[in-house]
């Protein structure tokens, strides 16, 4: 009896050893039961709103996937590190995540400066990097180097061109003013508006007024905008500053046609700006919560069920899902024996793929820009209504 037990034990040991020895080399961050993903985001400090919303959304969505049994029997472990929006801390976090925690991939990261600071390291270590939320400028000219990068995030310049074209052609804009945040995001939007004006004749840019993201109030900017007498005002701002400027111009009796970038689609705008947020024309790349899209609303409900705090931040939480969805589909398509290169191949097979929030994702071996489409919506009495069909712009990377 004892011999038999020993024999069985020996067999088990040999089997276990040979399984690890003969089986293919283990992929970093992947075990038969687990996939390790991570992110470094501003969870504290003045930019914490984005980190807690987007990071919290991704975290909740991965937990939801785990609750459904994971993908091919593997569940996700998701590590969130705080970088307080500071590039040195972001680099330190990412190095630790890759070298110590051995992550399979980095999901997003926020802020152009942070993206630039970790970019070279990500390329060197050939780590999968999904949808860093920063301007497409970061990737321009490095097509041959970004094999492991996938982005489902719109280009700010293209959005600016589209907004301007729509304003001039459909809303009869003649004199355009831009209110923008003084960083890469706002500047690229402004550049897009300028290019759009150059492409369609008959309109001119009469004012470009900027603010700092730390500015407490924007009264001086509102007076400048009023003096410009522009008939159309395009906003590139965060919800707080966007609501402030809309209220300030209403206060001084200035009423241009309002147009805006997708960041102001956040439903919080109706609460912040009140009646002033009526008849605003916005471009977007995803259907936002509260727009009547059943899948998006159901997704948000799931997120809030898992993490009730996300109810305060519905737009960013949904955006978080849109960042990571195509990657999860890639993992699904890569099959049970998961490797980095299988995921890359699987993601390159995505053609016009629709997720719960993101729509029309296409990757090819040449292009990592997953989405290149936008459409227009309009705000009316606390609701957004869809105005146009998809508009497609050329891929850049």
């Amino acid at each position, binding site marked *: 009896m004892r011999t038999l037990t020993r024999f069985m034990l020996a067999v088990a040991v040999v089997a276990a050893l040979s399984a690890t020895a003969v089986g293919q080399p283990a992929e970093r961050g992947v075990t038969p039961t687990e996939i390790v993903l991570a992110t470094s985001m501003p969870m504290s400090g003045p930019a*914490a*709103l984005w980190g807690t919303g987007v990071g919290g959304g991704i975290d909740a969505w991965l937990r939801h996937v785990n609750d459904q049994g994971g993908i091919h029997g593997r569940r996700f472990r998701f590590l969130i590190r705080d970088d307080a929006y500071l590039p040195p801390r972001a680099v330190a976090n990412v190095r630790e995540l890759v070298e110590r925690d051995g992550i399979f991939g980095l999901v997003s990261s926020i802020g152009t400066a942070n993206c630039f600071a970790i970019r070279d390291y990500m390329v060197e270590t050939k780590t999968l990097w999904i949808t860093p939320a920063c301007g497409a400028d970061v990737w321009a000219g490095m097509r041959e180097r970004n094999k492991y990068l996938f982005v489902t995030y719109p280009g700010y310049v293209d959005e600016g061109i589209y907004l301007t074209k729509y304003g001039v052609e459909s809303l009869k804009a003649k004199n355009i003013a831009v209110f923008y945040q003084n960083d890469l995001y706002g500047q690229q939007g402004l550049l897009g508006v300028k290019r759009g004006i150059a492409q369609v004749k008959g309109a001119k840019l009469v004012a470009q007024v900027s603010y700092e993201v730390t500015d407490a*109030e924007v*009264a*001086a*900017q509102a007076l400048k905008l009023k003096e410009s007498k522009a008939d159309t005002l395009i906003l590139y701002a965060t919800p707080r500053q966007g609501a402030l400027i809309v209220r300030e111009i209403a206060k001084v*009796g200035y009423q241009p046609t309002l147009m805006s970038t997708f960041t102001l689609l956040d439903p919080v705008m109706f609460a912040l700006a009140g009646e002033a947020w009526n008849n605003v024309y916005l471009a977007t790349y995803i259907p936002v919560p509260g727009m009547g899209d059943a899948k998006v609303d159901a997704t948000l409900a799931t997120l809030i069920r898992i993490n009730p705090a996300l109810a305060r931040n519905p737009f960013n939480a949904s955006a978080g899902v849109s960042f990571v969805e195509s990657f999860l589909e890639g993992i699904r398509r890569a099959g049970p024996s998961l490797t980095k290169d299988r995921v890359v191949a699987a993601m390159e097979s995505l053609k016009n793929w629709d997720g719960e929030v993101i729509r029309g994702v296409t990757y090819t071996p040449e292009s990592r820009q997953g989405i290149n489409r936008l459409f227009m919506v309009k705000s009316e009495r606390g609701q957004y209504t869809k105005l146009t069909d998809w508009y497609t712009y050329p891929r850049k990377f």
Partner: protein
Amino acid sequence: MTQLAQYLVGGLATGSLYALVALGVVLLYRSSRVLNFAHGDIATLGTFVAFTLLGRKLPFSLAITGGLAAAALVGVLFFFFVLRPAKEASLLGKIVLTLGLALVLSGAVQVVWGTDTLVFPFPLSDTRVHRIGQVVVSETSLGTIVTGIVLMTLLYVLVQGTKIGLAMRAVAQNADAAQALGIPARKIYALTWALAAALGGAAGVLLAPVVYLDPFMMLDPFLKGFAAAVMGGMDSLPGAVLGGFLLGIAESVFAGYISFKFKTTMAFAVIILVLLVRPEGLLGRVYHRRV
């Protein structure tokens, strides 16, 4: 001319906020020589507490009182449980203690209330406006200016016209001598902390309806209020008020006519120039150092 008047109105409203913040900074500095870097975060905490109380359907005046009381309580607790036990700390060490408090409070506000932008319900509307000629004055601006001036007057009466005020002045001038004369210096310090924190809280409550409520809303007003206090003279309460209004108006006019991009730089440039002419601030007491 209308334009200038419009800028002046804006400057007065922000100026009265700066003055309230500056008063809190000066009150603490002249009594205990502490530069309180947590002033802004104490104010933010008080405002958030008021916000929660308002959400519980409390009447406005009660909710605001609750918020200010919370701010005052944090100030007093910090004094008794951190600053007193760390008597040995140098002046710079005390600054670092307040920096620690600022981090703790700001973190706590983020954890409890989240980081999203909130609407602070206020009886005065920011979009309803009065017109004086061509000049537009919103109800909140008017309310801010009036409330600011009322609070400043009350503080003046308290400090200059009451027994407690006399004790506060005595402790500020020479704590040991005051204590020898039977003034309970510790209680007076605690009271000063409470008063300063509540003043900050008042600034927060006045600011929140204008710029919305979020955990970092006091960052900029605190720095400006601190700067205004220095410009006015760190040991002078009237100086803090003067500094606050001057800074608010200068900023608004500069932003309107020249550049809003360099608004803050200009504010500090003006302050440095003032200090080069009067190193003790506009109304600060010139004191002669002896070796």
